[in-house]
């Protein structure tokens, strides 16, 4: 059984249907990427998994238990944590306070400093800037902070929404390096990306989303070699 399974997921915004029965699964210790064009439904899928959107139909199962009817905070405490798109950090709080906030669901006082230490090991840059206001960090640092904050909750599955969005190429590399390192430490990740080339380089498997449906899936290598993918998303003719 997969760690996270999405079955026949339908989501609509009012009258407009956005997802028409998305199916995907993420196994333990895997990076799975969801690629597709603008408006294909990538972020909608993530928001429906994390409970920020309520699906019309379908199941989101973590370890065989359906989460689709739970409110977002309960989904977080069960171990599905989303790092929102566009680096939503608490701009007026310091780096350290942001991380503490990420551990809101963590019970036990000793656990939080321990996890902060882990995040600092993963992102030494954040340790240097821990007393600084998050809003004054650079774009790349804010993305690191958003990811670190997500890790504070101790996720079983980390949902990353467009981590490379709006970053300079050098920083994109850094962010994907971090994703690789998280993977090597055993974190399970569902990664949504427009940058399909980079996403497929770090991922084990991938799904291609088109107008609210999964049109293609396979291992990252298969997708990279697939003609339609190469043409539509990797810019190779």
């Amino acid at each position, binding site marked *: 059984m997969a760690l996270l399974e999405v079955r026949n997921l339908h989501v609509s915004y009012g009258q407009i249907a956005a997802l028409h029965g998305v199916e995907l699964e993420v196994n333990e210790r895997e990076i799975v990427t969801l690629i597709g064009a603008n408006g294909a439904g990538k972020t909608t899928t993530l928001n429906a998994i994390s409970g920020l959107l309520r699906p019309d139909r379908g199941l989101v199962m973590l370890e065989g238990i359906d989460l689709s009817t739970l409110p977002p905070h309960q989904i977080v405490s069960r171990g599905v944590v989303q790092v929102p798109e566009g680096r939503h950090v608490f701009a007026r709080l310091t780096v350290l306070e942001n991380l*503490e906030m990420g551990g809101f669901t963590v019970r036990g006082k000793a656990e939080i400093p321990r996890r902060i230490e882990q995040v600092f090991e993963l992102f030494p840059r954040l340790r240097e800037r821990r007393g600084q206001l998050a809003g004054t960090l650079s774009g790349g640092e804010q993305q690191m902070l958003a990811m670190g904050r997500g890790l504070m909750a101790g996720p079983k599955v980390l949902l990353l929404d467009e981590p490379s969005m709006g970053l300079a190429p050098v920083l994109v590399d850094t962010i994907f390096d971090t994703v690789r390192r998280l993977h090597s430490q055993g974190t399970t990740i569902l990664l949504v990306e427009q940058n399909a080339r980079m996403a497929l380089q770090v991922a084990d498997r991938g799904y291609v989303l088109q107008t609210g449906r999964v049109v293609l899936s396979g291992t990252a290598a298969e997708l990279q070699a697939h003609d339609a993918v190469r043409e539509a998303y990797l810019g190779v003719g």
Partner: protein
Amino acid sequence: MTTVTTLRARFGAATGNPFSGGAWRIPVRYGAVAGVTAVFVSLIGMVEAFSRREVIETAVSMDQVLLLVITGTAGYLAASRFAARGIGKSVIAATLSGVIATLFLLALLVLGDRINLRQVLLNASPSLYLELTFGKGLGTGAGLLALQIIAGAVGSGLIALLPPAPRRALLIGLTVVAGMGILHDLMSLTFQNWGPLSVLDTWLYSSTGLKVRGASALFLIFGGWSLLWAMKGPQIRERSKTLPLARSAARPVALLAALVLLAALPQILGLFLSEVLVLVGLAALMALGLNIVVGMAGLLDLGYVAFFAIGAYTMAILTSSELAFFGFNFWAALPLAILAGVVTGVLLGVPVLRMRGDYLAIVTLGFGEIVRLLVLSDALRPWLGGAQGIGRIPRPEIGSFEFVSSQQVYYLVLGGCVFAAFISWRLKGSRLGRAWLAIREDEDVAAAMGINRVYFKLLAFAAGAAFAAMSGAIAASRLGIIYPHSFSLLISINVLAIVIIGGMGNIPGVVIGAFALVGLPEILREFGDFRWLVYGAALVGMMLLRPAGLWPEAIRKRELTARPAGVPETPSTSPSAGDTS
């Protein structure tokens, strides 16, 4: 355009002429603003009304202080803008601003001499011209006026050029003298009613204002104290840190001293000021509640008066002998009034959970009006009294002691405020406070972080409503009678203003805000409607000069002083885990 101006200004400074290339505009602008303001306060009758009051007997009247403050501010600002260019140029700048301001007043005098302005401007009376010209007629009088104003501007300019410590001492001394002079009646009364202090009254004050010796003594004592503290203060603070006993004892001792002082206040201050304190306390109690909703959780509530009304009406219905429904006493009704607040707080919270910002504000606004109209309605008259309200609400009592006068009710209000401040302070540092902070900063991310928005928002509404209901319940039993008209939208707005002016989210800031917005207008009551003019101007000025409030929360303050991206704060590695609150 602006860079050209600054370049020219710099160039002008380098070549020795401070007024070449546009820099002269600064003092002219300050002078013009001061001149227009001075003419304005003259034409609305403030100068004439104030001329009958003396700050220092026979020497300085209050209208002179008013004009000096207006034009002096211009001179002070002009000189401090030119401070880097040397004393000579700064003095010229201050003089220039004074001259410009004078021109406006002279124009008024000349115009008033030629045309009868009184047909349009009611206050342009002969006595105004007499007052402005020191009763000497247009020729000599205008000269004296010009001399006084220019001297005031230059003097203020010189103050601006002093080093910080003596400058602060001088300003504090002058402010204390002016303040004590303006509040003469109130101070005299207060000193007289408290035995040992009545000596002070006769020493400081004559029947019209401060005596010269009183003014000089106040100036020397407060100015000197400020100067002394500036020189010795850091040393004393340093030394007290090295004493382990002082360090550990300082907080409890200070807290105890504050409590003793608070308990003794009504006896020291007398009836009128105790009344003011009760009003401030009731407002502070409401503001502490609204501070939870707006300041901590970031939910803009414009119908907050509803909970004040619900607390008051619950108290009235349960205790009033006029209605004779239940006949509870105050202490039995108080918890029920608070409970009623909590329940309605949650009831209001449920429908507005999904709303944010302006939408939330409008819906809560509607809620406040609904409550007011319900208690006003004829249909509910048998239960809620309709437009006549509910009377014969018994006073609170403990045993045979009854809280009747303001000096007694004060303790009840003080108890409420201390309770509310303590609860707020404990909540803020708790998990609950952090959840509210997260919701205020970014609601979506808060949800992504595992924070139950529904639960914590409802708790914020409930906690805020509880304090407002408590305030309402005390207010009802203090007055003995309540009317629907006492619960208008204006109260919601005033309380919101207290929270914003005081410093959103910060508990002592909110209390200071209550003093500033409720206490000051009461104390300045003798100045009639002019106080509202000053009040309005002060609010606008406050928001421009201190946008985060009088005593802002650390988080808001640092936002306004935040550095641009990539520039680390010094030192960037400093551990600052707990510096939020």
